[in-house]
């Protein structure tokens, strides 16, 4: 049977230059979505001849009053259930737009289909019942639209006839939903009072809504901007396959953004190999087109033989995507089994697929409640932020930089189980190992504490070069050891000779240097040792990162010796070299040391002798629960 032929082709399709917008329509299950769609098709003249009459006849035969929603509820299964069961796409045209309307069911169990629909949309209509007002499901849909990056949202307040076309009622709903959406960073393009059943506010302005000075629904659709111009962004060509059907070696893929042309210098990520485009191939004849833009499916040949494979992303040399083995993503979860930290998953990003593990779950949110669940799992239809450790390096972008190469899907057991937006790329994690199975120590923390008489801690000495960090750290190490404790000194310069030998002094490398120090120190601390870190660590942000890594084991000790005193000491001769221009990037003579404001302890070594300062530190450690009674007494003596 053929109940809907609302998909009357936009004619003639081939020559149409009208902007095409894809609109998802969402809302609570009973708020009148199907009725609005039926009405829109009717008002835009998109119904086949006789359809309205046929449906009326069907209604009478079934002994039911006519409903606009019958137009859509065309499947027998749908009539049986009384709800729409999947994403349906309907084409029609308004005065200024070709529209593909994606009907996403409102029933909670079918949320994943709504997401599937919304994922392809340029804009959304969010429907609210004027009588019932904003419901949990309304808020959830608003949040999901935000999550999926649908920025153009027109809010439709339906069933105004049921509230007597009352302006105050409309205003109350309007204020509530505006506040909710604005809080999510979405400004509604319009908020429109209508009665879909009676036709007010859908196509023409209604006298019963004369107090409304905004657009009608069709007017609002005409104001939606079509999809954004991907060709303005840097080149991204994910490799789908390499074909060798004849003597050509063709790299095939679709340009996701930007453009390319013969002779372009390209870089193949994540490996970072460089090549030039020799030719752009096509059939029946090789294209005369000079430039190929976002959206084109192309095949290119390169000027040299090099290894590349499906999943690589080709960019231009100066604007390539980043390579990483660790991503942070804001995801929505569709699978029955909740997603937990440590879960083995498959990640698809562009044409790349990689095994991965969920390294951490940072947030788990029920979009209806918008409350951060303390849960370490993301349940079905919930959203969250996760860190993903990938088995292989991938090329990626942050989603705000590139919507196509900044999104991924997650597969479980060969089935798409979730999707999300890339919100962070940890380039330092290129070498993160896969299949991490943390092995816990055989010893309990109490056993170690009983032996050492202290708990594990990270003592982070920060301050200018020459401030006395190493001197104090060494003195403290000696004192703790003599008291029977287990201190370990981690000196920044010493670790740079080995573990951190690959790092320079760029901002990025300094951050990574600090991160590694913090990781090593935190590991020692978790195993009961007192890790004593002496590192200039000038950046507030880097120290904050170190504190995050070590958590409540972290104690920051700021050695606040004045710069003049430090320079006069100059134990390693660095100040002299820097003054004479032989040492660049040296922290000390510029203003690049960001002093801490909330250290656990501050010590000025120009006024405190080493023994006094060490005493200050041990007292702080006793006070904050690191040193237990006996060792505290011994250390203080």
């Amino acid at each position, binding site marked *: *049977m*053929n*109940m*809907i*032929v609302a*998909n*009357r*082709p936009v*004619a*003639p*399709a*081939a*020559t*149409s*230059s009208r902007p*095409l917008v894809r609109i998802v329509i969402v809302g609570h299950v009973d708020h009148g979505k199907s009725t609005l769609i039926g009405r829109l098709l009717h008002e835009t003249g998109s119904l*086949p*001849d006789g359809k309205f009459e046929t449906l009326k006849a069907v209604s009478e035969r079934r002994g039911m009053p006519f409903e606009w929603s019958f137009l859509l509820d*065309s*499947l*027998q*299964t749908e009539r049986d259930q009384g709800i729409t*069961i*999947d994403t*349906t*796409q309907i*084409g029609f045209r308004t005065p200024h737009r070709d529209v593909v309307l994606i009907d996403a069911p409102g029933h909670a169990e079918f949320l994943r*289909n709504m*997401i*599937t629909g919304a*994922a*392809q949309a340029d804009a959304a209509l969010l429907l609210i019942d004027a009588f019932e007002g904003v419901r949990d499901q309304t808020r959830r849909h608003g949040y999901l639209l935000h999550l999926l990056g649908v920025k153009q949202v027109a809010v439709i307040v339906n069933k105004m006839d049921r509230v007597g076309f009352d302006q105050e009622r409309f205003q109350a709903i309007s204020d509530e939903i505006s506040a909710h959406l604005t809080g999510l960073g979405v400004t509604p393009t319009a908020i429109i009072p209508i009665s879909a059943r009676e036709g007010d506010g859908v196509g023409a302005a209604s006298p019963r809504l004369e107090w409304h000075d905004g657009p009608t629904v069709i007017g609002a659709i005409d104001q939606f901007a079509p999809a954004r111009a991907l060709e303005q962004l840097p080149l991204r060509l994910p490799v*789908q*396959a390499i*074909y060798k*059907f004849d003597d*050509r070696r063709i790299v*095939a*893929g*679709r340009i996701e953004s930007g453009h390319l042309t013969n002779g372009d210098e390209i870089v193949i990520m994540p490996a970072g190999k460089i090549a030039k485009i020799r030719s752009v*191939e*096509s*059939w*029946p004849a090789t294209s005369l087109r000079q430039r190929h833009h976002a*959206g*084109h*499916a192309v*095949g290119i040949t390169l000027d040299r033989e090099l290894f590349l494979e*499906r999943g690589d992303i080709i960019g231009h040399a100066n604007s390539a995507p980043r390579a990483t083995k660790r991503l942070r993503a804001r995801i929505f979860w*569709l699978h029955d089994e909740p997603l937990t930290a440590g879960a083995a998953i498959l990640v*698809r990003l562009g*044409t790349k697929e990689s095994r991965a593990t969920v390294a951490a779950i940072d947030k788990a949110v029920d979009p209806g409640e918008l409350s951060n669940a303390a849960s370490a799992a993301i349940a079905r239809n919930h959203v969250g932020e996760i860190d993903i450790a990938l088995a292989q390096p991938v090329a990626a972008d942050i989603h705000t930089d590139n919507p*196509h190469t900044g*999104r991924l*899907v997650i*597969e479980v057991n*060969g*089935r*798409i189980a979730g*999707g999300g937006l890339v919100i962070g790329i940890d380039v330092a994690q290129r070498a993160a190992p896969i299949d991490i199975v943390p092995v816990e120590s055989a010893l309990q923390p109490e056993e170690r504490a009983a032996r050492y008489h202290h708990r594990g801690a990270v003592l982070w000495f920060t301050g200018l070069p020459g401030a006395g960090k190493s001197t104090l750290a060494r003195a403290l190490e000696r004192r703790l050891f003599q008291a029977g404790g287990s201190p370990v000194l981690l000196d920044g310069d010493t670790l740079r000779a080995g573990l951190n030998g690959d790092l320079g002094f760029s901002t990025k490398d300094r951050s990574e240097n600090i991160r590694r120090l913090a990781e090593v120190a935190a590991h020692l601390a978790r195993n009961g040792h007192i890790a004593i870190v002496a590192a200039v660590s000038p950046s507030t942000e880097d120290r904050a990162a170190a504190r995050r890594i070590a958590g409540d084991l972290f104690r920051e000790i700021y050695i606040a010796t004045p710069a003049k005193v430090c320079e006069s000491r100059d134990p390693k001769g660095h100040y002299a070299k820097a003054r004479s221009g032989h040492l660049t990037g040296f922290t000390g003579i510029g203003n690049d040391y960001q002093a801490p404001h909330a250290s656990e302890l501050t010590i000025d070594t120009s006024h405190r002798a080493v023994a006094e300062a060490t005493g200050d530190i041990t007292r702080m450690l006793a006070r904050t629960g690191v040193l237990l009674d006996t060792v505290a007494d011994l250390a203080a003596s």
Partner: protein
Amino acid sequence: MDRLDQLEAQSIYIFREAFARLKKLALLWSLGKDSNVMIWLARKAFFGRVPFPALHVDTGKKFPEMYAFRDHYGKEWELDLRIEPCPPIDAVDPTLPPAARSAARKTEGLKMALAKYGFDGLIAGIRRDEEATRAKERVFSPRGLEGGWDVRDQPPEFWDHFNASPPPGAHLRIHPILHWTEADIWAYTQRENIPIIPLYLAKDGKRYRSLGDADITFPVESNASSIAEILVELAETKVPERSGRALDHETEDAFERLRVAGYL
């Protein structure tokens, strides 16, 4: 890019994804306008070749013009053509209405071909705008062991990421032109100069809009004797494309029952 360029690029992307991710593909060639556009798109995707077999599940009841077309272009397009017969009508569910029962032979023929070759992916030229149940389809659509389609338990598919891992023994239907409309097909056929079966063009005030078995397919009133005229006609008509396909109209749910059983 105009609309046809966009549609073409999307279809090529789907073809290449299918070829990259499945082991044993075949393209279902019904000889109609849609599957001819599909073959054209496959040749574009693979630089002139169709790198998998073209499968014609033959009811034996097609129009003579269709067989002539198959034999000619199968050679000219260098297709790896596999012609598979359908079982007799007696082998088909007798509770179906007559035309649907006749069409269901094709479903049985398809199952036999699947068993014979062990394809894990079948590329089919259905479109969302053709028929309401097809609007619910996925681009990569899993089929159970019996070839059945479970409309209520379809995996999510978004951002051009497709579920391409059918369970052992099951297969995938791949729908590279799901997003095209009837008018798109004709406009593209015209632009690319793709050959068509002449039955689509009007003779004596009638033409076929959709081609199936000769005994259950009927022409519609039309004076469109060229593709340009068909496009003008489509811009004006509100008659459904499959109105000449008897099996669609026997009962409200006949078509859906066919599809659940594995019909295209």
